[in-house]
């Protein structure tokens, strides 16, 4: 998609929250809900619009972390509000500003030149929401279960009859084998859960896992499928070895 020109001097600016599908019955203004209580309004062209507020032609920047957090929160709140008004919104990241002597004109030109790409994105996310699913497990518990396998039991018995130094090395060997098997199991569970969740999602982004996470994904889900997805996650919870965090809905930040 063609880049919006970035700002560099003292011209006028328009801060952009999102693009959206627009029809004439939708309101022109969303009220003073923007960053620093600015009035948020739409610039529309031929069935699509940008949700914006008028600002100086310079980025929002501050060394005060709380101030920046407040701006970012306001940014997301406006996108949330817009997603309740318009049939589909394409969120923009924080601090995108159109500059120029006539930024509204630049916005209209951009909407016209990018129309097909914006409509394509809108079509992809229309009627859908983003959810985050995180599945946690305790590897130590899984390893204890694996230890019940005969081959590990035999090794464990042998180790108990060994002298101290030899037992140490064989214990390490046993631990490595358990770790490898647990990792293999984790991969199998990941694929199993992924296929269960995929049935109810239109798109999935795999995110980085931390600590005890087995899976950390963002899903694009049709609103009509959310209940089914929830039921599917219940079946994972019923397995008792895992806990599930299911968070959302969010505007589809990860899929535009």
């Amino acid at each position, binding site marked *: 998609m063609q880049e919006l020109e970035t700002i560099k001097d003292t011209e006028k600016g328009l801060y952009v929250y999102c693009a959206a599908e627009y029809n004439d019955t939708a309101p022109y203004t969303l009220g003073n809900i923007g960053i620093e209580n600015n009035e948020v309004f739409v610039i529309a062209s031929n069935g699509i619009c940008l949700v914006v507020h008028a600002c100086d032609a310079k980025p929002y920047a501050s060394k005060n972390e709380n101030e920046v957090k407040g701006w970012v929160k306001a940014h997301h709140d406006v996108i949330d509000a817009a997603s309740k008004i318009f049939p589909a919104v394409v969120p923009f990241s924080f601090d995108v500003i159109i500059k120029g002597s006539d930024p509204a004109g630049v916005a209209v030109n951009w909407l016209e030149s990018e129309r097909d790409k914006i409509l394509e994105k809108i079509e992809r996310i229309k009627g859908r929401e983003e959810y985050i699913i995180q599945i946690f497990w305790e590897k130590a518990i899984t390893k204890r279960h694996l230890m019940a396998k005969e081959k590990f039991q035999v090794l464990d018995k042998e180790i108990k009859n060994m*002298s*101290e*130094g*030899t*037992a*140490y*090395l064989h214990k*390490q*060997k046993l631990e*490595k084998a358990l770790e490898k098997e647990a990792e293999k199991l984790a991969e199998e569970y*990941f694929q199993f859960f992924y296929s269960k969740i995929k049935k109810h999602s239109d798109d999935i982004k*795999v995110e*980085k*896992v931390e600590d005890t996470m087995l*899976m950390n994904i963002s899903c694009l889900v049709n609103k009509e499928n959310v209940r089914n997805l929830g039921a599917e996650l219940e079946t994972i919870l019923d397995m008792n070895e895992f806990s599930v965090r299911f968070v959302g809905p969010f505007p589809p930040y990860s899929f535009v």
Partner: protein
Amino acid sequence: MTTRIDINNGNTKQSLLGLVIALVEIIRDALRLQALRRMDSGKLSAEEVEKLGLALGELDSAIEKMKDEQGVTEAVQHVRSSLDELANNMVNQVVGRNART
């Protein structure tokens, strides 16, 4: 123009010790891996296996004691997690994918 840097001596000591012990642990892990390889290759006598195991066991005990005494168990874990993440990111970059870590 002068620049002031506030250093909390306690924290600096803990961080440095955490880093040093994390590096010792990584070397210990490499030694352990090498010992297991040699044991599995069958080239070590039973006596050599016993000596190697005892030495590595003593090293484990010394490391754990030092971590306890200096209260750096968490700092060591933090350094190791950061290094793991760095290594994972590098591998993912090289293979060009956003893999599970």
